[in-house]
């Protein structure tokens, strides 16, 4: 915990930015002090990402000003912001798949040799140096295509380091990271702070804010609600100021009595991805697949649903075997999959809300082969109501919704088929605390009604509090199974990272 020097390194003062009628950011102010990590918290749609893009120079502020070392600065573009010593790490890494890792780090400022030509040797050397500073080993000449999300983050961070950035802005860098990698990230942040950099850290995992930040600013509806040293706030008042009201218990999992087997997976195998996966999910229970990102959890889900073909093994739903690689067959057998990546897989972002809700149920909405718009609208309205969807017009594209509401649309799309097995991958990734609670309550309701739920989550607390049983995957194999009682953070993490004799499943 470093003390904050008098003048902030970067001061955001009364900044506003609006898109048409939508005021994304209104009069936000926050100070970033050298050597300090500053957590920026808030629900989705609170305006955090817009603020980040203003700092990054992607958007120009409509009013208000940015002061660096007390001097007002105006960024004409991302380059300007970077030149001023601000570097931004976005939630999804932004790499050039076709270019080498080193070139990704130094794009636009590659070290030059004689005749202003790029000095590749020097470039690779510098890249390696940065990686050593980060304590990782990546081949700088290797193409970025095919890097794991974590390694992509590493490259992004390396990029930021190579700038010797004075201000480092991280927009949910941990969303896709495993605990191990998060740990490494925090060490990096520590290093940067020691070098006198200011860090703005955006996350939905409040624990992380407490673990690594000294100061916190909470945003709601585009406004900065309060800024305070971390030790002056508790999780509860943070949540209160985020959602603007008190929250009933966060993870209200009610115990249920599991019924007969719905999903029965035997010796499921997909070459090079996962191997010999066997498990069952019963009516009225939530089974969680835990493990590190890349351990093959989502891949198992995809194979069960039929998005990917399985190389061997069987998948039975209500005793009937599912054909290989046929999502439609799975759906007709009563399986629903709420995928990991909402924006890419879960929704057609440019389609209207009602059309997205109806997309998986069109078969039932036909008359003489034609879609009945009326019943389509009706279906959508029903589910919007049940899920308390916040929207202005059914005809708007889902891209206009906040992350949480988008997730509700995905859920509505699948619940509209009233499935008997719901596979839900990262149910609450990147959605705000309020909606998180709603989603969890919803899952409870479903299992209570006898739906079988297979849940995949990188958030241990979520897994531990929601799941009746926890299956841990490591390197594509099930390495442990815990009952609700046995499961705790330590045991699950050890099984996931393979740091202990595997508990017999």
């Amino acid at each position, binding site marked *: 915990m470093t003390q904050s020097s008098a003048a902030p390194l970067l001061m955001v003062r009364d900044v506003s930015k609006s898109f048409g009628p939508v005021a994304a950011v209104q009069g936000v102010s926050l100070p970033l002090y050298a050597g300090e990590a500053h957590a920026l918290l808030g629900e989705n749609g609170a305006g955090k990402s817009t603020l980040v893009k203003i700092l*990054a*120079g*992607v958007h120009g502020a409509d009013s208000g000003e940015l002061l660096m070392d007390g001097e007002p600065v105006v960024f004409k573009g*991302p*380059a*300007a912001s*970077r030149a001023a010593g601000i570097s931004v790490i*976005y939630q999804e890494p*932004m*790499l*050039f*798949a*076709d*270019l080498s890792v080193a070139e990704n780090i130094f*794009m*636009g*400022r*590659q070290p*030059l040799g004689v005749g*202003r*030509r*790029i000095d590749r040797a020097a470039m690779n050397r510098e890249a390696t140096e940065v990686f050593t500073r*980060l*304590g*990782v*080993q*990546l*081949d700088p000449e*290797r*193409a970025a*295509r*095919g890097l*794991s999300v974590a*390694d992509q983050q590493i490259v992004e961070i390396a990029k930021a380091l190579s700038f010797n950035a004075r201000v480092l802005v991280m927009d949910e860098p941990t969303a896709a990271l495993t*605990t*191990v990698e*998060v*740990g*490494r990230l*925090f*060490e990096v942040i520590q290093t940067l702070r020691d070098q006198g950099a200011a860090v703005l850290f955006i996350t939905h*995992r409040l*624990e*992380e804010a407490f*673990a690594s930040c000294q100061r916190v600013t909470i945003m709601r509806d585009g406004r900065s609600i309060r800024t305070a040293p971390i030790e002056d706030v508790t999780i509860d008042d943070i949540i209160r100021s985020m959602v603007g009201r008190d929250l009933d218990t966060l993870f209200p999992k009610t115990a249920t009595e599991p019924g007969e087997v719905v999903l029965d997976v035997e010796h499921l195998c997909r070459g*090079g*991805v996962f191997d010999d996966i066997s498990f069952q999910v019963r009516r009225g229970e939530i089974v969680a697949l835990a493990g*590190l990102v*890349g*351990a093959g959890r989502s891949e198992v889900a995809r194979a069960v649903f039929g998005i990917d073909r399985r190389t061997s093994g069987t998948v039975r739903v209500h005793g009937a075997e599912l054909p290989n690689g046929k999502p439609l067959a799975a759906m007709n057998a009563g399986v629903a999959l709420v995928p990991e990546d909402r924006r890419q897989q879960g929704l057609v972002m440019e389609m209207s809300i009602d059309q997205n809700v109806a997309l998986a149920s069109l078969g039932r909405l036909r008359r003489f082969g034609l879609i009945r718009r009326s019943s389509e609208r009706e279906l959508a309205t029903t589910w919007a109501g049940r899920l308390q969807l916040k929207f202005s017009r059914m005809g708007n594209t889902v891209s206009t919704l906040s992350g949480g509401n988008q997730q509700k649309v995905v859920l509505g799309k699948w619940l509209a088929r009233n499935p008997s097995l719901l596979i839900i991958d990262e149910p609450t990734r990147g959605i705000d605390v309020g909606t998180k609670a709603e989603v969890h309550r919803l899952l409870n309701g479903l299992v209570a009604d006898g739906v079988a739920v297979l849940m995949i989550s990188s*958030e*241990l*607390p979520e897994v531990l509090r929601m799941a009746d049983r926890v299956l841990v995957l490591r*390197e*594509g194999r099930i390495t442990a199974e815990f009952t609700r009682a046995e499961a705790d*953070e*330590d045991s699950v*993490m050890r099984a996931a*990272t393979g*740091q202990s004799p595997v508990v017999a499943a």
Partner: protein
Amino acid sequence: MSVITAPAPAPTDRPVSRLESLLRARELGIALAIIVVFGLTTLNNHAFAHAASIQQLLNGAALIALLGVGETLVIVTRNVDLSVGSVVGLSAYIIGDLFKHNHDMSVVLGFVIAIAVGAAIGAINGLVTTVARVPSLVVTLAMLYIVRGFDGVIVNGKTIDPDSIPTAFTAVGYRTLFGIPWLAIIVAVVVAAVGYAMRSFRSSRDLYAIGSNPDAAELAGIPAGRRVFTAFLISGALAGLAGALFLALHAQIDVSGGSGYELTVVAAVVVGGVAIFGGSGTVLGAALGAVLLNTINQALVASKVSSFWNGAIAGGLLLAAIAFDRWLSLRVARSLQSAEGAHRDL
């Protein structure tokens, strides 16, 4: 939430870099293909290996190769330029007409004007594409019509006859230096220069970045608009140059000059290993792609196969080429996955 510090992962890259070197050796692959075709043809017809017919191979491929260079720049940025064929026709006719009316116009000036005409059209393509941010495929398709139409209006049934073009100009089309046709030398120089630039300068690396991930390019502060504009500008200029060379080579030009080139060029570029959706590919590969297609055309006639087979074979080859690319990238992906697994191993 618990924070466990673990040793850093060490990705095992071996299989990757091997396959990547294979990818990089794409040019090598095409070169081999050319040699094979050439060799087989020579076996059943020794005349094919004569200096003369090698010159012919180079001359024949020169124009498409030249256009391929420009097209590569554009395609690498995830765009496409379909107007090149029309540009060739227009620039060739314009300077042809100038020569016709003032016979003692300097040859150099002729080239300069042709390039300028091409550059002008390239600029239009670039401006509309970048300023209005509209798909270049549509823009350049429209320009294909407009330029060809404009060409037709000014040509209006006239032709440029051989005797109205200064021999000093046509000489470029057939003179040789140490047995290498000037045409081929000019194109080779362009390929070498642009190829070198594409590897060694920041601005040209930007082109790859833009094609590889436009959003990231924007965030990296790369002036995408300006770069893409430049790519179209160069593509246009080279098409103009190609027009001049067309006139020099054929000593005649009418309204149909260069029509249909656009698809041939794209085909050559794709055969040359340039990814149609941008981000990767080299001008050398594109040029070699052009040489390969032309070699096959001539090899067919030379080996007394009916020239009727040209089309079918060229088409099949193109399909084979892209299928091969796909197969290769799948291999890379798979080997990466296993590398991935290994990497998680710690």
